[in-house]
């Protein structure tokens, strides 16, 4: 007895084509990593845009090389900055926070301070140049 052929000669089965395509699609969907860039956004002042500000409206925030923060002349823990800034802004909404870091300050300490300022919704941040 001759065995019956399932397909005619020279024909590719197309029934499983959709499954194969689906598998490929899912493979690409899973493997493409959409690594969205995220971070703290700031806008730098344009070159030569120095303006004079009243002394009362400036709050100095100094960071030393070991990551300790001096806010308005008082030493403060990094995690308490946002609370204090929030209070100060409530008192004076024209307040500009001037962040000044030491040359050897670690970038992560600076980011921690910037994060605290963002948390306090401080819009007026100035980054002082290191001299």
């Amino acid at each position, binding site marked *: 007895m001759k065995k019956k052929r399932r397909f005619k000669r020279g024909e590719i089965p197309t029934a499983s084509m959709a499954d194969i395509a689906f598998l490929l*699609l899912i493979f690409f969907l899973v493997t493409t990593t959409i690594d969205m860039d*995220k*971070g703290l956004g700031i806008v730098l002042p344009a070159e030569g845009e120095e303006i004079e500000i009243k002394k009362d409206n400036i709050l100095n925030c100094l960071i030393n090389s070991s990551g300790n923060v001096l806010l308005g002349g008082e030493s403060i823990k990094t995690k308490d900055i946002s609370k204090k800034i929030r209070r100060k802004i409530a008192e004076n909404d024209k307040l500009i926070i001037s962040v000044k*870091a030491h040359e050897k300050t670690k970038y992560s300490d600076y980011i921690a301070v910037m994060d605290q300022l963002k948390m306090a919704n401080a819009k007026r941040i100035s980054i002082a140049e290191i001299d």
Partner: protein
Amino acid sequence: MKVHRKTKVSSDIPTASMPDIIFMLLIFFMVTTVLREYSGLPVELPKAKRIEKLKSKRHTSHIWISKEGLISIQDKLHSVENVRHVMYDIRAADPLLTVSLKADKSAKMGLISNIHNELRKADALKLNYSTKTAVE
């Protein structure tokens, strides 16, 4: 007398064009995904809580700063004084540019401050400190 329906409506969905539809989807995804252009330097990003997403990947240019103080833009190492020329060209080509600063968490602020000044000179003012998400 029973009324018979004249036309029979077939109840199954035609699957013959299914592979074509799926292939279309596949090609769409393959075309639209932007692959990472530059590999940069190995950096360990700092962590922050109040982060925002960068709006468009196409209008973003990265600057990598390693902990040794190397600066890499578009997979080429540059000196600090050179950053302004490189960034000026990139900024001129794309007015909506946002610079994403991928600096190592133990990089020194002296260098970051110099980069700030260079970016100001290059008129690339929109800056984003690239960070990881910190758990609250």
